[in-house]
């Protein structure tokens, strides 16, 4: 059988015996991450409201947890872990580079427009 699956996740910390078992393992992992996000989203602890790099610490945690989830969906559900390096890099790095560039431009510009409204002569609070 040429369907060799890489059955280790978390850099080999957890190894599964079969592919089906790995799927359930990843489901548990994704559920835990989602549960953490929901609990943080409901209670919004004050200690996580400090601003780090222009955004609340809590928001950074949400974004990082989202990327963790995206990683496991792509690597295990979409079998990226089992594809060749060439395909993996062609898909993942292309998307990541372009998306980061797009986000940088638009958010930078959004912040600038906010400043123009705030410090400039344009009035919109009436």
């Amino acid at each position, binding site marked *: 059988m040429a369907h060799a699956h890489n059955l280790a996740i978390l850099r080999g910390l957890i190894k599964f015996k079969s592919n089906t078992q790995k799927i359930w393992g990843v489901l548990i992992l994704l559920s835990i991450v989602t549960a953490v996000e929901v609990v943080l989203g409901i209670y919004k602890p004050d200690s996580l409201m400090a601003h780090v790099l222009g955004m609340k610490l809590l928001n950074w945690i949400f974004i990082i947890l989202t990327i963790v989830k995206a990683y496991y969906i792509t690597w295990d559900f979409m079998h990226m872990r089992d594809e060749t390096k060439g395909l993996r890099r062609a898909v993942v790095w292309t998307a990541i580079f372009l998306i980061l560039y797009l*986000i940088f431009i638009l958010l930078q510009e959004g*912040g600038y*427009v906010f400043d123009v409204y705030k410090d400039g002569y344009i009035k919109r609070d009436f």
Partner: protein
Amino acid sequence: MSTTVVNAEAEGKTWGGGNQPLKASYGKMMMWFFIVSDALTFSGFLAAYGFSRFKFIDSWPIADEVFTHVPFLHGQELPMIYVAFMTFILIMSSVTMVLAVDAGHNLNKAKVTLYMFLTIIGGLIFVGSQAWEWATFIKGDYGAIQTKGGNILQFVDTDGHRVALRDFAVADAHAERTAHNRDNGLWFVSEGSLPSYTVDEVYAGLEANENILVRTQIINEEGEKTVLSREESLKQIKENGTLVVEGANLHVNEYGSPLFADFFFFITGFHGFHVFSGVVINIIIFFNVILGTYERRKSYEMVEKVGLYWHFVDLVWVFVFTFFYLV
């Protein structure tokens, strides 16, 4: 066994589709590149949402106050619960999909059929939930007043709890205005349904109820919306109030900036459309599985390809969930 479906004559050749450096079949690779381009489309939308949010960073609606409803639990404020449920449904249907792919590798037709069926059910539940979420959002809850400048003024009592227009507005029986339709006025113009109250009726209600205050869109340092004093409240509605807004559509939005509603409809709508088309494609493949098409082909790679698309839809939802409901 090779995962390649079509490998006639291309084996061992340098050109013309032979010599696969990525060791993936044509169909699977093209699905991946389609997914890359679709991912860029979605990130374009989400980045545009981020742009508008940074532009109105001090007055953007707080998602926890917008999406608080859960079916069958009327009048309870339960932020996050319903979307968490939707997220779980979609992840679950992703799991059944990947189980179907796994069963396909083992050429187990019965199991592929079962798991494909469960995936379709999960997708339908998700689309249904999405429709309910939209309906609740469009219908609105408390109502608000829009000012000349397009800002939204909401109403709270002295404890800071939201108050609905229907709870305090004084209806004026003589001030009734008929909606302008094509059959009772100019035949080439018409207007949408009128809100339940006029601005004057809301103002009369505000004057009569001492304990009601106006809440503006501006977010203060504690991360909450600013509540005006009693005099300021009356002055704002009297001088600037132009329109009663109930619910949300593409023009007005009782929760705050109309852009929030526009992006909500556009991004979750585009995602919902992807889920819907995913369900349709899954159904087609499901019938192919039942008919034994892949059994005869001795390869369930088609299930794997639609699986990729289905997981991608889940992947996008993970990001929509974060940027619309959490951040």
